[in-house]
């Protein structure tokens, strides 16, 4: 069971070996990363099958929590570990043969993301979060264009300030409780953190981590970075890293900050994100910025979903997150070839009909056309919101519905452009997609269709994941029972 630790250790190790190994043997250097990730995926699956749905905790270094640090493995953290590894593999920078640094950074991202998903204490979460930051700065600047450097700098500053806020928040938590172990905190929280001070700790952590989660208003790095980065990196940041940031916040909400005000704070910021993001996307002039703004909008909706109390919110939020994780990277991969202004895309869909068709499918699911998975995720969100009595949740229904209308409008304006014959005086800039991008997009779309066909079992399973994650008592019992494995 404790082989799950290897999902963090192996990619981390590989990340340091790759630059050296690439000098010795370029071929081995190219293969090491994907092989490591593939092996880690296998390990995750093994653990998944072995745990039989029951969470367990691993004490690292032989010290029992709360003294030692621990990994907490339940279905949710394992799911995100698995998704991290699979997404990193799918979005692996195959083409950059000459650039082992990219391999190293991707591996570092994967390792620290797995660590973030599995960590059972606040301190480790902070460390892994910082590691993710380092990796993502490097990736964002990887295209080495002036715009990319400028955008990365913007990202760096915001993210750095965010980290300071997180640290402040963690400090307050420590001050109030004297521990950073999540399990122990979950027991202490009702007495110690259910105060304005506790709430301000949450606010600081929310805003700090929200930088990566594309939370309004600390997300203004998003359009610049995604406009300058490659499709793979944008896919990784928008699809994966943002979800991990959300995951951390959700864990903290469940375990530490079970206050109505905390939920409302997140809800309001989510609402603002949804409406501002979609509106800005409506006005965007090029594909990448449009996708970036729409990503802000969708993350806003995800925050809205997670602010519904109880497992309903977790269920809806997870469904939306998984859907976004599937769709957004695929769209960014398609956008890589459809670079530049939207007006220049006329006829691009006719030039490469497969890519155009996939774009339509993904856009339809994003808009939430039934019976595609996007609809069911949004349906869960709406039913969850409707079950709440506070007025602000009813307002949220209206805002999300409005944002869907705007989203449909701009996405299909692009679709129409794609399938219009290009004007005579303007040569089509598009020369088809590389088989790699197209293949990956195709795979993601196939997963989307499979998700639609298996919606029943998939939904039931995801509900199980949400139920397990929504139970703080289970978390405590798991960590402090005999279970700790050396």
């Amino acid at each position, binding site marked *: 069971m404790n082989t799950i630790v290897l999902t963090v250790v192996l990619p981390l190790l590989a990340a340091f070996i790759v630059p050296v190994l690439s000098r010795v043997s370029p071929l081995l250097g190219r293969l090491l990363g994907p092989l490591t990730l593939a092996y880690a995926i296998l390990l995750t699956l093994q653990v998944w099958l072995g745990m039989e749905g029951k969470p367990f905790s691993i004490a690292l270094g032989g010290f029992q929590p709360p003294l030692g640090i621990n990994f907490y493995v339940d279905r949710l953290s394992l799911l995100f570990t698995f998704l991290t590894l699979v997404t990193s593999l799918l979005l692996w920078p195959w083409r950059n043969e000459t650039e082992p640094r990219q391999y190293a950074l991707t591996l570092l991202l994967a390792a620290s993301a797995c660590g973030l998903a599995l960590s059972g204490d606040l301190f480790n979460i902070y460390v892994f979060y910082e590691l993710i930051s380092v990796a993502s700065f490097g990736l964002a600047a990887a295209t080495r264009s002036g715009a990319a450097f400028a955008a990365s700098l913007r990202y760096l500053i915001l993210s750095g300030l965010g980290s300071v806020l997180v640290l402040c928040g963690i400090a307050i938590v420590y001050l109030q409780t004297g521990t950073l172990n999540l399990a122990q905190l979950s027991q202490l929280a009702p007495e110690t953190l259910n105060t304005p001070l506790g709430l301000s700790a949450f606010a*600081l952590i929310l805003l700090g981590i929200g930088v990566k989660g594309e939370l309004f208003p600390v997300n*203004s790095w998003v359009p610049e970075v995604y406009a300058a980065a490659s499709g793979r990196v944008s896919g990784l940041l928008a699809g994966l890293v943002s979800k991990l940031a959300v995951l951390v916040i959700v864990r903290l909400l469940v375990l530490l900050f079970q206050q109505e005000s905390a939920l409302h704070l997140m809800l309001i910021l989510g609402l603002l994100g949804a409406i501002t993001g979609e509106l*800005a996307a409506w006005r965007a002039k090029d594909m990448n910025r449009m996708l970036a703004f729409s990503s802000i909008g969708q993350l806003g909706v995800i925050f809205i979903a997670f602010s519904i109390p109880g497992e309903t919110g977790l269920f809806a939020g997870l469904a939306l997150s998984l859907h976004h994780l599937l769709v957004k990277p695929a769209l960014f991969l398609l956008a890589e070839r459809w670079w530049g202004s939207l007006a220049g895309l006329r006829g691009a869909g006719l030039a490469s009909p497969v890519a155009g068709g996939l774009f339509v499918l993904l856009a339809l699911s994003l808009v939430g056309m039934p019976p595609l998975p996007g609809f069911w995720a949004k349906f869960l969100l709406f039913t969850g919101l*409707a079950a709440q009595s506070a007025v602000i949740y009813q307002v949220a229904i209206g805002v999300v519905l409005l944002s869907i209308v705007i989203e449909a409008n701009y996405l299909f304006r692009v679709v*129409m452009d794609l399938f219009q014959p290009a004007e005579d005086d303007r040569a089509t800039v598009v020369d088809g997609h590389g088989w790699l991008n197209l293949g990956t997009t195709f795979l993601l779309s196939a997963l989307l269709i499979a998700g639609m066909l298996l919606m029943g079992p998939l939904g039931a399973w995801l509900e199980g994941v949400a139920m397990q994650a929504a139970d703080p008592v289970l978390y405590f019992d798991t960590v402090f029972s005999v279970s700790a494995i050396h």
Partner: protein
Amino acid sequence: MTPLDELLLFSGLTLVLMLLLGRFSYAGKIATVFYAGQLLFLAKMADRIIDGSIVTFSLQVELFGLQMSWRFDALSWFFAVITLGAGLLSSWYASGEWGERFRRQGGNLWLLHVALAANVFSMLILLGSGDLLALFIGWELVSWASFLLMTVAGGRAIQAAMRYITYAMSGAMAILAGIVLLWSHAGGLQYGQIIDVIAQLSQAQVWLLVALFGSGFAVKMGLLPFHLWQAPAYAETPGPGAAFFGAISARMGLYAIILVLVQLIGLARLSELTIPFTFLDMRDLWAWIAVLTIILPTYTALRQTDARYLLAWHGIGQGGYMLLGVVLGDALGSAGGLLHVFNYATNQAVLFFAVFAVMFRTGTADLNKLGGLITRMPISFFAMLVGIIGLAGLPPMNGFVSKWFVYRSLMIEGEPLLFLGAIIGTLGTILSVYKLIHNTFLGQLRVEHVEVREAPWSMVAPMIILMLLIFATGVAPGLVLDWVALVQSAVGLPVVENTLGGVELTSGSLDMLWVVGVLFAGFGIGALLFYSGGRTRQVHQLDNYAGGHFLTAETRYHYSDNFYAGLMHLIRPWYRGSFVWLESTLGSLLGIAASLMQRLYGALHPSIYLLVTVVVTLTWVLL
């Protein structure tokens, strides 16, 4: 396998076949045969529908604790007959020379066939929905299928389609909000549960429900004030598509209105919902929306100079009669409304077929560039003649019967103002359909049209079928009224007691057999006088006169531009374009908001947001 299984499977098969074979020249013929096959499957369930029983679909889906099921009752069946009839005739129309020409001119015939099949399939799914979730799914499928068909022509059609999908998405989201609201009270979305829950809801909640569902469905139906998208979207669609849209597509909105407002909420409940600060209730409001929908779009149609737009604007107006009849809710009125769905579908289809036949031969539908085609395209002329008589609601065509029912019901129910509104609308219809046929077929033939021939048989045959249908159901409306009565009893409305020729009422019956008999006797007498009355002289078509002036071959003249100049002079100040203004204002506001948001995200020093938010949040928390 139930008959509904067979129908839906076969309809899905048609769609798949079109996806695979749509690019070949024989695709239209295959599609026609397959639509006929679907009609046969529909006919197979007729005996069960007549028994008043429900035909179920074997597949049921359960997701997230919600049951989804599909079934056909008389209401679904009635609309499905019209849908498949429209699909059959439209694809027949496209199957021959029309499709060939369309493809030669660079049109995407594959997309047209696929989109048409997708429309029919999704409409059948919608009509079969057995609960609100299935209804929403069907609704969305229909919306996107329509969008697909609207985009076939490209160019201006794309703009119209985008406008449509924006309206449609807004409407769909309103419906979804209504569904979510009901779900939060009922915990399920089965029709039975919903009826129980609505009975317990407060007036304000039902008010909200009616507003949400009503505005969502009104978008599809093109009711005021959500009507602006419809005419361009339908008119810019290529021939068979436009005919199909005109005939049935917007009526899906009526189907949903009947289902939700009449069946689930109930007209009686609507009457209980008063509108603050007025003496009206919700039902009056719907009736007035219907009447305004009759009047305003009809007079907009009067101003059109493109035959396709003229017809499409009429389509919006005619929807008003159907809604008015249904909202009246008595046996006669609702029968009239439902009957008009069928009658209008036949009229509009034949009119679009005729207009596109003219376009096929002359290349234009511009009413200022046509004229005198009666000698060149006599069958098309006759088709249009039959169509406009029906559309204007004059005997002996079927449109007369349904409108008579609605008028009669308005009189019996004592609604003089609504009656007046409906009459004003009909006046506009008569004026504009006369403009249509006059500018297209009457008057002098233009020089460039001397060589024009009648449209090919593949296009004429559907017109002839429709003409016969319009006349037959005009003489013997009982044929369709039998179905309408079934629908009424399925929906829970009072049932009309019809005869073959019309209806028996204590306050004045209608028997079309007599009406038509007398009418033709009149024609007979006229003919007798004409042929026995002495000298007649055959004159050439160009030997003509207009406005008191003689016209000959030397002075070619056809009065078409600025038609009804005198009338227009009187009523022009009434055309304010308020809805267009409203729409564009909303668009501009959205644009301004969006620009502001872009500014927000483009800020040079974004860290300031972080700082401000932290300060604000902490202040909020600590205070």
